[in-house]
């Protein structure tokens, strides 16, 4: 039945976008945090009196 299939087609594309965007946001957040920690560590080594 094409009509009931529609919900599955929609679900498939929805799941695809949820996963792709979800992973994208995870990477962006992780990236920001990693970069911040990196800058911090670089500053510590450069500026800190060790």
């Amino acid at each position: 039945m094409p009509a009931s299939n529609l919900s599955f087609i929609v679900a498939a594309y929805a799941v695809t976008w949820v996963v792709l965007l979800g992973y994208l946001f995870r990477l962006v957040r992780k990236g920001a945090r990693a970069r911040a920690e990196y800058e911090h560590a670089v500053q510590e080594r450069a500026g800190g009196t060790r």
Partner: protein
Amino acid sequence: MPAPPRTSMWLGIGSFGAVIAAQTYAILTSPAEGDMGHLQKIMYVHVPAAWMTFLSFFVVLVFSVLYLWRRRENDDLLAASAAEVGATFNGLTLLLGMIWGRPAWGVWWVWDARLTSTLVLFLIFVGYLSLRAFVDDAQQRARWSAAVGAIGALNVPIVYMSVKWWRTLHQPPSSPETLDPAYTMGLRLNAIALLLVLIYFIRKRYEIARLERAVEHAAEAAAMGGR
């Protein structure tokens, strides 16, 4: 320690845009088919996701072997990044396979060759990532994951073959997923678009891995009373 290069934001925007464009094209141009209606449209996301999964695994294999050969840390980080991205596409492939299967076969799961071997592959990915999570020493982690990654990848074709035999000897073949030629163009476009997303994801994940490793290095140096 030199900063790892930033992953281009434009690559991200461009690749996602390409996916939108490819999906739109495919949905609008593909004809309805028999009693399945438009169900085959799911193939535009399911098949490329599967291809990206296998491609990721191939990258894991190549860089695992490279790491064992020349012991460059970046090779290990790239393999690990490809594994995480690959696991994500693997999960997506499984979900989409199930969503297609429910109306096509009437059930959420069948032990058919492709679905089952994709599931086993997913477990191999998960094992690889778990190993990395449970080993603290960076060099040991790199060596061990490279060995596990290479040996795991070696098993992928064997798993697929054995599951296929297991199925064909006992059940009639499941509904063939051969695609109408009318679908080929749309499929190719979606595959290329998703490939761009894959490249973006792996590069971004790799950038993060290198940043984290650099921070780890700094901490190690500080702990040893470094300069």
